[in-house]
């Protein structure tokens, strides 16, 4: 194989081409075939062109459709593949020019050599269980450099590439690096001092153990898991209203802080609900796969979006635990990896049974809420209240059952009474002869010959008429109001309004009697009118009617009944009836009726009216009289012994609905008690969880991945290229979770250790953290990856953390191992040699150096300034956000009109910031956070002027700078130089050089002078943010220091962990 030019070698230090000697299929050949050939000659069997597959040796060495043999082992000259990749004939050339794929000369040579060497295949490493490689033994200076097995692997490779590691970073840099990496916050100067003062061998380990025990650890590690889990506080999609998933987020923090082993962490999140007698905590954990978006757009088809939910779970689970791109198989067999479309839907079947609707509708869609399945999360006190309310329901139900027993005898008495009534002509409405008619506002009433009353005298703005009369024993079920035109009224119409109209805004009726301890108030249930003005319908009165017992009444009812009384063509007598739940009237009772005129139209009082009442069953009463259903009449006439069941039912139903009876009252009490529980539950925190239907849904292959094109039926099963379900586990979601963390699984442990590596070293051992399939980037240290994966599952060398021996799947211990390594502890100094040869620092001949993640950028500023409020968990908070970020693009849902918190919510750790997916916190997006719409396992790391503007000008950073300035003045010493040095150390953990102090102090002096001249500007600057400076500070001085602190918080060294 020809040597490559130096430059290429430098850039491609990790590519397969640099390895001289024997070709290794997985390292050297598979990437070429996978990238260039598999799309047409790969695992997607249906699409294999010319019946040739190059991913399978047996296919590649057999004659293809054309009769030619692609690969003749040992004989490149006879191999059609070689002919076709070297030809000049564009019609023959492979890959075809149309594909825009092109093999380099080196790649062609590699294929040729590989075939010459016998064309040996290997299974893709990602589908082969890792076996524990031997730890290399190093001698000489590198041997002394090694602190952990990790270093042996790293050192061996450095030796091979003729590179040597950097010396250990300074203690200041080291403690800052480890503290930021493990807790997301910088060390305090006291912590730095303690470390500097500790010259013991274990000084660094003590720091690491302390950090691993800090509650900040769980928060920091969780932040990345939230990106992966697409956690947010809104549903996403069009309406994007709020949801409550923070109890799940808090579960993650707690699990990480208590060092839950990763296998358990996995099982509880994927299938906590299926664990035997699952605890509340395990149910909450299962919320992982409910964090996906849920669509609530009007007009959507539920099933389409339920399928999307299921597919999101498949993709997220595949990506999170296996770094496999299952989503490629939604529509067809995978182009690169051995996963078929059928297998995709077999995997889909594990997640298809959630008792969900698929979309979010109704109130929850508009105003926020959690769609089913969910669990409530009352605290101990709330649980007590729940128990009490449940007890009240039981009591009410017992009373109801008792009442039901009494009912037959009551009913038979009523039947006799009612049947008697029916023998006579029924008069529905009985005109009232009031003993008194009063106006609250001083109007007078004249009794008319037809029994009606005409209002006169003053016409107050919003009058109330009170009518009192004696009433016979029996029951009250409704009131009829006749309104009549009169010559004396404006426009000769019905109302006293200047135009002749009126608006009746309310009707009240109550029965009083010496035998009654308190009045019985009629509860109106429906209303009907002979005519009603558009928009002023009579039933509005009933809807607005205050419920009996309600204290407050509406000051002014905007709605009400009006009759177009201003229209001369419509001056007709009008009727309105108001039906109520039957009210029992005792002997010697008085009825009081009030007519309310509370509309915004001041003088719209009724002019002339009459009132009637009825005692008939409400369902029989009409405006013009009564109507008893003939079938009921017939049923009542029939001999009770000979009634048909239908007849008996009709009578019972009629009786129950139309009389005031004990059962009806008891049922109302039960409903009230149940409502009280519902209302209380609605105030409790909840979280969406996994819960399967009792009977699994049928799963089918979806043709082209479309919900409405079902194909063959499939059952739950795992892809054949991956291990089988372990013995003794059920073939359900729980089994699937256990399968992922079984020792046979080739991917889970590798994926996890790789992601941990990326956290501490900037880039994963496999650079494509998001893909471990055939197209994965070749690992920079394959052996190390496998060693770490085996070590994670079965520890032999993992260090104890705070004295606790490492367990299997021990996340803290693995994190500790990584940060204890010599590779991690190196200085980040870049040498020309290492930059030239390994620009991305994959080989680690220098310490890793990269910008802090978005959360840590802000948290650090809050911490250094002293503004940070540390408190774990709880509802998400709303720090500063520029005006209208939520409102410029949406008028939908309940997440609009963002109001920043006023207290501690402004200064909590960034991971608690309220996350609306369609308009995410803007500074987070600027610093490369994903939108949290889908599972994201790898973030970009960019550097833009917009980031600079945010760090210079955003109020959070301006306020933090001022707070730091206050501390400089009060805690930093007496002179400007001392204060600068103090703050410099706060920000960077190290002491500044004289030159650095001088740059800053020169600037400070210049600004001090300027702000002294411009006191107004100084005052403006130092009053930014919700916290205000103490009056003891001189405004000009504080402003000058604020800008110096602003410089410090913007230093590359500060926003970078190095």
């Amino acid at each position, binding site marked *: 194989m020809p040597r490559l030019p130096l430059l290429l070698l430098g*850039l491609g230090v990790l590519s397969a081409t640099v390895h001289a000697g024997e070709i290794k299929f997985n390292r050297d050949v598979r990437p070429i075939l*996978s990238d260039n050939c598999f799309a047409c000659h790969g695992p997607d069997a249906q699409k294999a062109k010319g019946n040739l597959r190059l991913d399978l040796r047996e296919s590649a060495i057999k004659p293809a459709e054309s009769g030619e043999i692609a690969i003749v082992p040992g004989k490149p000259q006879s191999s059609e593949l070689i002919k076709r990749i070297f030809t000049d004939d564009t019609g023959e050339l492979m890959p075809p020019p149309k594909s*825009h794929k092109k093999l380099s000369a080196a790649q062609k040579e590699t294929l040729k050599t590989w075939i010459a060497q016998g064309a040996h295949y290997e299974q893709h490493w990602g589908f082969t269980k890792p076996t524990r490689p031997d730890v290399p033994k190093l001698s000489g200076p590198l041997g002394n450099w090694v602190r952990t097995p990790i270093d042996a692997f790293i050192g061996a490779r450095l030796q091979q590439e003729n590179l040597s590691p950097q010396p250990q970073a300074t203690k200041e840099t080291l403690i800052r690096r480890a503290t930021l990496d493990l807790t997301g916050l910088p060390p305090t100067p006291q912590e730095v001092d303690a470390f500097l003062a500790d010259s013991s061998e274990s000084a660094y380990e003590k720091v690491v153990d302390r950090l691993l025990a800090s509650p900040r650890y769980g928060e920091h590690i969780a932040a990345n898991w939230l990106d992966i889990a697409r956690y947010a506080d809104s549903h996403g999609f*069009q309406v994007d209203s709020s949801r409550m998933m923070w109890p799940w987020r808090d579960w993650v923090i707690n699990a990480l802080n208590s060092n839950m082993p990763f296998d358990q962490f996995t099982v509880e999140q994927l299938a906590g609900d299926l664990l035997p007698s699952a605890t509340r905590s395990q149910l909450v954990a299962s919320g992982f796969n409910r964090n996906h*978006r849920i*669509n609530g*757009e009007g*007009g*959507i088809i539920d099933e389409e979006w339920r399928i999307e939910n299921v597919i999101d779970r498949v993709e997220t689970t595949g990506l999170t635990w296996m770094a496999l791109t299952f989503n490629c198989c939604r529509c067809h067999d995978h*182009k690169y990896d051995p996963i078929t479309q059928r297998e995709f839907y077999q995997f889909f079947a594990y997640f298809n049974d959630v008792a969900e609707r698929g979309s979010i509708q109704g109130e929850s869609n508009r105003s926020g809420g959690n769609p089913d399945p969910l669990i409530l999360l009352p605290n101990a006190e709330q649980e007590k209240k729940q128990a009490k309310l449940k007890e009240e329901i039981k009591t009410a139900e017992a009373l109801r059952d008792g009442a039901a027993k009494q009912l037959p005898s009551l009913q038979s008495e009523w039947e006799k009474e009612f049947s008697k009534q029916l023998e006579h002509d029924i008069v529905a409405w009985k005109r009232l002869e009031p003993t008194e008619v009063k106006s609250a506002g001083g109007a007078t009433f004249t009794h008319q010959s037809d029994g009606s009353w005409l209002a006169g005298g003053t016409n107050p703005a919003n009058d109330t008429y009170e009518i009192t009369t004696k009433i016979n024993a029996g029951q009250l079920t409704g009131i009829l109001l006749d309104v009549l035109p009169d010559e004396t009224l404006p426009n000769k119409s019905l109302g006293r309004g200047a135009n002749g109209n009126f608006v009746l805004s309310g009707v009240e009726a109550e029965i009083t009697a010496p035998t009654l301890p308190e009045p019985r108030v009629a509860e109106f249930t429906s209303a009907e009118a002979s005519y009603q003005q558009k928009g002023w319908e009579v039933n509005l009165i009933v809807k607005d009617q205050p419920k009996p017992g309600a204290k407050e009444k509406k000051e002014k009812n905007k709605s009400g009944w009006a009759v177009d009384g201003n229209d001369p063509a419509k001056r007709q007598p009008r009727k309105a009836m108001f039906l109520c739940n039957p009210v029992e009237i005792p002997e010697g009772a008085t009825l009081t009726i009030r007519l309310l005129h509370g509309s915004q139209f001041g003088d719209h009082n009724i002019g002339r009216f009459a009132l009637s009442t009825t005692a008939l069953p409400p369902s029989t009463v009409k405006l013009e009289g009564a109507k008893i259903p003939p079938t009921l009449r017939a049923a009542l006439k029939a001999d009770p012994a000979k009634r048909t069941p239908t007849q008996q039912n009709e009578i019972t139903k009629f009786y129950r609905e139309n009389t005031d009876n004990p059962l009806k009252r008891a049922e109302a009490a039960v409903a009230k008690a149940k409502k009280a529980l519902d209302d209380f539950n609605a105030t409790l925190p909840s979280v969406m969880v996994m819960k399967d239907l009792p009977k699994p849904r049928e799963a089918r292959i979806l043709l082209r991945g479309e919900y409405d094109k079902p194909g063959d039926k499939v059952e739950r099963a795992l892809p054949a290229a991956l291990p089988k379900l372990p013995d003794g586990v059920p073939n359900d979601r729980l089994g699937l979770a256990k399968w992922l963390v079984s020792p046979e699984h080739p991917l889970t442990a590798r994926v996890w250790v790789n992601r941990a590596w990326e956290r501490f070293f900037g880039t994963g051992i496999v650079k494509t953290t*998001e893909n471990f399939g*055939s*197209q994965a980037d070749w690992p920079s240290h394959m052996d190390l990856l496998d060693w770490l994966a085996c070590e994670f599952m079965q520890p032999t060398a993992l260090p104890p953390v705070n004295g606790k021996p490492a367990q299997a799947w021990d996340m803290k211990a693995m994190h500790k191992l990584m940060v204890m390594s010599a590779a991690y502890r190196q200085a*980040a*100094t870049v040498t020309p040699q290492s*930059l*030239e040869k390994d*620009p*991305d620092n994959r080989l680690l001949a220098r310490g890793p*150096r990269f*910008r802090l993640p978005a959360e840590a950028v802000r948290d650090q500023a809050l911490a250094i300034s002293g503004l940070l409020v540390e408190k774990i968990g709880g509802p998400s908070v709303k720090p500063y956000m*520029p005006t*209208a970020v939520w409102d410029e*693009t*949406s*008028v*939908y849902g309940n997440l609009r009109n963002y109001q920043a918190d006023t207290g501690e919510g402004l200064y909590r750790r960034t991971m608690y910031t309220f996350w609306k997916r*369609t*308009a*995410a916190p803007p500074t987070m997006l600027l610093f*490369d956070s994903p*939108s949290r719409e889908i599972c994201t396992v790898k973030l*970009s790391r*960019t*550097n*833009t*002027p*917009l*980031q600079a*503007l945010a760090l*210079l*000008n955003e*109020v959070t950073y301006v306020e933090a700078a001022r707070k730091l300035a206050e501390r400089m003045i009060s805690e930093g010493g007496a002179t400007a130089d001392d204060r600068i040095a103090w703050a410099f150390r706060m920000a960077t953990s190290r002491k500044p*050089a004289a030159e*650095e102090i001088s*740059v800053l102090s*020169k600037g400070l002096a210049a*600004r001090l002078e*300027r702000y002294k001249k411009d006191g*107004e*500007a100084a*005052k403006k*600057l130092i009053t*930014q943010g919700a916290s205000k400076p103490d009056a003891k500070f001189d405004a000009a001085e504080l402003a000058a220091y604020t*800008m110096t602190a602003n*410089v410090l918080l913007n*230093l*590359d*060294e500060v926003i*970078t962990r190095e």
Partner: protein
Amino acid sequence: MNCNDHCFSGLDSETRAALSRRTFLQRAAGGIGLAALGGLLQRSVTGGEGLAGFPNFPPKAKRIIYLFQSGAPSQMDLFDPKPEMEKQRGKNLPDSIRKGQRLTTMTSGQKSFPVAPSMFKFAQHGKSGMWFSELMPHMAGIADEFCQVRSVFTEAINHDPAITFMQTGSQLAGRPSIGSWVAYGLGSENKDLPAYVVLTSFGSGRKDDQPLYDRLWGAGFLPAKHQGVKFRNKGDPVLYLSNPPGVDRETRRETLDELGALNKKHFDTLGDPDIQTRIAQYEMAFRMQASVPDLTDTSKESKETLEMYGPDVKTPGTYAANCLLARRLAERNVRFIQLFHMGWDHHGGLPNAIKGQCKDTDQPTAALIKDLKQRGLLEDTLIVWGGEFGRTIYSQGALTETNYGRDHHPRCFTVLLAGAGIKKGLTFGATDEFSYNITEHPIHVHDLNATILHLIGVEHEKLTFRFQGRDFRLTDIHGELVKPILA
């Protein structure tokens, strides 16, 4: 921004290596000055702009102004006249036309699907005789500038997936938007402004209309630096652009000098080229603090110009004001300028609502095109006008003499193009007499996007990004160039 892609970024390995050679040489020769750093970064970039090999051929358009009409304008009330429908008024949409195609659940439960002919009068305009309804007098006035494509179709029937599909080539979240793709492939031609700028406005036709989402201009899996920069209608046009109260430009310059000096010193110790990028970014931020206010300050626009855009132009955040800004962005060579105007979702009360929308957009759209033409910019600017799908010929809800509504319709809708590389005065594609199915030249969203990319010099199959082991592109594995509409 000084982009050359890399100023807006973390460095890729190639640049990092190239940089290392230069910077170490210069350091060896006695160090480099702060001012030299920006230039150094600029020079260091292979291919000067965007990706090597892009544009793939000399482009017709240097920039794109995409006037997105969000909510889906009704094609048969604006561009695609169906006079025969008067005879069908109130009759049920024939099954032979509907062909069992799926409907949204807003109308799938309707007992009947009464045909609602457009209330608006249509006429032919210009030499080309292009049809416009009376609602679009100003655009009709420049009919010969447009190519009217009546046969675009999509796959989604709801707004969120449909608008996401138009913008990213996928109905689901996660893919980069078209502007991000262009910014990634071609970089910026402007040293003080982003490559992809987004402007939004609410419509007066339906004030409670469809929202927009970050993802519509998001970078998906591309590096986040390529996301569209949404200019804001209130406060700073670019987030955090202004210095805090009490900090003037002189003070800012002074602090940036301190910051630069300290960062430079740290670079001298550590040698990490990422520090140089950081320094350059702060300098660029400082330049933006001047260039953005200059961009948004329209006080020096002539009276004639302002009048051309109509009265709304003076109200920030309106479509008219955004059209004027679009011209100013185009003058500054911003690569991809996208306006989103909300309010086109007219399920009920369409006649009234669409009038409001047309009043918002008709005059400013025409003014933008005329303005660009006057300044010689139209010949290398591509204009696209369209929404995410069409609307149904049948009425949603009751049909009366003066009122009707229309539901979502993915099977055909009209998109207008103008400017660079577009055949002027062409009406292309056709629909059946119900404007329900396409009868001539169906153009899928991927075809439209492939054509837009082509006009800016990008072969859509070549602009790819490796993610999760696969080379992704805007047009997925589809997209055919629509050659007949190209000049």
